[in-house]
């Protein structure tokens, strides 16, 4: 889990810039089993019997699932089903809320991030997060991107890092003329891409996205979706979304969560996105994706 960032690893980031090198979207890394269901051979995150309480409220109940490396996994479900809570468990952002209790394990590359020896600060550098509402720092575009690298002791050329991150977030051409401009002066979609640039600038392995397009207009959302597909070359991405079409468009796998009558969010169905939307196994999944509730 704890790893030292070296320059050879950051150099590899440039590979993600070439759109032509992208393999086709419909080849999730998995092995098809005879019964039609597939198995994740190289999981990067394994959620193992996870339960979470906010004070007395049991919010997430006994969730187990794995996320495949360098794929996009979508978490969908109606409001209050625990999907954002689950997402925030993966980089221990829930620790910041008073009264949260977590049971079970989340293993990232085999190491349980809820182990007592693990420092949540280090977890958050290797597992970045993009939030629902664009939240750039009220500083210059350059500083927005450089901050994370600087506090994490980045020793390389900062100008290059900032440019690379902004290029990778498809924002460079729009802002290269004035990197000193405040991040808040950008449009909503640009702000969200700046937040993505900021997140990938610290060289994470995993990027979590919590409804990243819900505050954006359709065109800006589309650009973010394209970006997510490109970033999946480099990073493992978990995205929470309310938008079923978005889940179908960007993800390789989809997990559907639902709160049962007692209010506890549980995993209902999880599988390859193409199968999930065309041939759901569970009645509740079918009802949800056909718009009968939610």
């Amino acid at each position, binding site marked *: 889990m704890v790893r030292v960032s070296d320059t050879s690893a950051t150099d590899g980031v440039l590979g993600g810039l070439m759109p032509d090198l992208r393999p086709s979207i419909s080849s999730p890394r998995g092995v098809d089993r005879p019964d039609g269901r597939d198995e994740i051979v190289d999981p990067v995150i394994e959620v193992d019997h996870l339960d979470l309480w906010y004070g007395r409220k049991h919010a997430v109940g006994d969730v187990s699932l794995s996320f495949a490396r360098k794929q996009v996994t979508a978490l969908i479900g109606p409001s209050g089903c625990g999907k954002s809570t689950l997402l925030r468990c993966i*980089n221990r*952002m829930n620790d*910041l809320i*008073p009264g949260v209790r977590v049971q079970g394990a989340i293993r990232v590359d085999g190491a349980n991030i809820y182990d007592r020896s693990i420092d949540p*600060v*280090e977890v*958050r*550098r*290797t597992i*970045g*997060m993009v*939030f629902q*509402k664009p*939240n*750039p*720092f*009220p*500083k210059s575009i350059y500083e927005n991107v450089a*901050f*994370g690298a600087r*506090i*994490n002791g980045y020793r390389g050329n900062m100008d290059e890092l900032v440019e690379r991150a902004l290029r990778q977030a498809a924002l460079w051409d729009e802002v290269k003329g004035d990197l000193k*401009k*405040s991040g*808040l*002066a950008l449009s909503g979609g640009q702000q969200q891409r700046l*937040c993505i640039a*900021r*997140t990938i600038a*610290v060289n994470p392995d995993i990027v979590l996205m919590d409804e990243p397009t819900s505050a954006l207009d359709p065109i800006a959302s589309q650009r973010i979706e394209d970006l997510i597909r490109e970033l999946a070359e480099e990073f493992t991405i978990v995205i929470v979304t309310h938008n079923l079409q978005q889940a179908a468009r960007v993800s390789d796998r989809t997990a559907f969560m639902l709160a049962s009558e007692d209010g506890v969010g549980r995993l209902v169905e999880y599988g390859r996105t193409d199968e999930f939307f065309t041939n759901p196994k569970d009645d509740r999944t079918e009802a949800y994706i056909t718009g009968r509730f939610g």
Partner: protein
Amino acid sequence: MAAEQPTTAAGRAHLFRPNQVLRGSLGGIFIVLGLASIVLALGMLVYLVLDVVLRGAPWLDWQFLTSFDSRFPARAGILAALAGTGLMMAMTLALALPIGVMAAIYLEEYARESWLKSFIQINISNLAGVPSIIYGLLGLTIFVRQLGLGRSILAGAMTMALLVLPVIVVATQEALRAVPSSIRDASLALGATKSQTIWHHVLPQAVPGILTGNILAASRAIGETAPLVTIGALTFVPFTPQSIMDRFTVLPIQIFNWTSKPQAEFHDLAAAGIVVLLAVLLTMNSIAIVLRQRAGGGRRR
């Protein structure tokens, strides 16, 4: 079943009593009352300021600002009090600002919710309302006597720092609370520690609010007389303080001293002193406004 409800809009019209005339005139009375209150409050203030300025103006000259107090009104000046007030304010803020801001950061960002935190919180608010003479007695007991600082400007500044501390803590806490949590989340999600997040993002955003709180606190302190009289500031000081252990006087004490003399000329001198005090106060407030705008200006451009 109630009486039959009319089914058309026109049929239901008689159920309403719009009473436009009464409601309109009530609104008018409300506006007039508000306006009268402003005129009354501002009028008194304008009268007070005009009176002071008219009486003090003839005495306000370079000689007044650069001379020490004297038995003769024509030769009396305000230098010692001005220097005392300036030094006292600088020392008070130098002591109270770091302590107050750090205390507020701890309470707001680190302290867990508990009965102890609530207890401290309530008592900080209470302390802000304690009569200033109590602080004077505290200063006299602890700083002047126990610590043996004597009736020095240092003992005075430490007493004043105690007096303004609650105001600074509360204002800083409010400023910190106003920083959106999304900024904290963004920083923490990049692998910043809590202290890095506070230092790089929360505190800079809270600076305008903290500055305002501090200027308010200083404005309160600059007019305080009682605690300094209690710890034994002098009323007649023919020197400027040369070290922080010197004895001292401040503007309000000097003004009070002059008003309590029998000769009418000294009363006019007091008016001149008030004008100087008001000028110092207004200057400080304007500096605060400029600093705020500069700090806030970096946000959006």
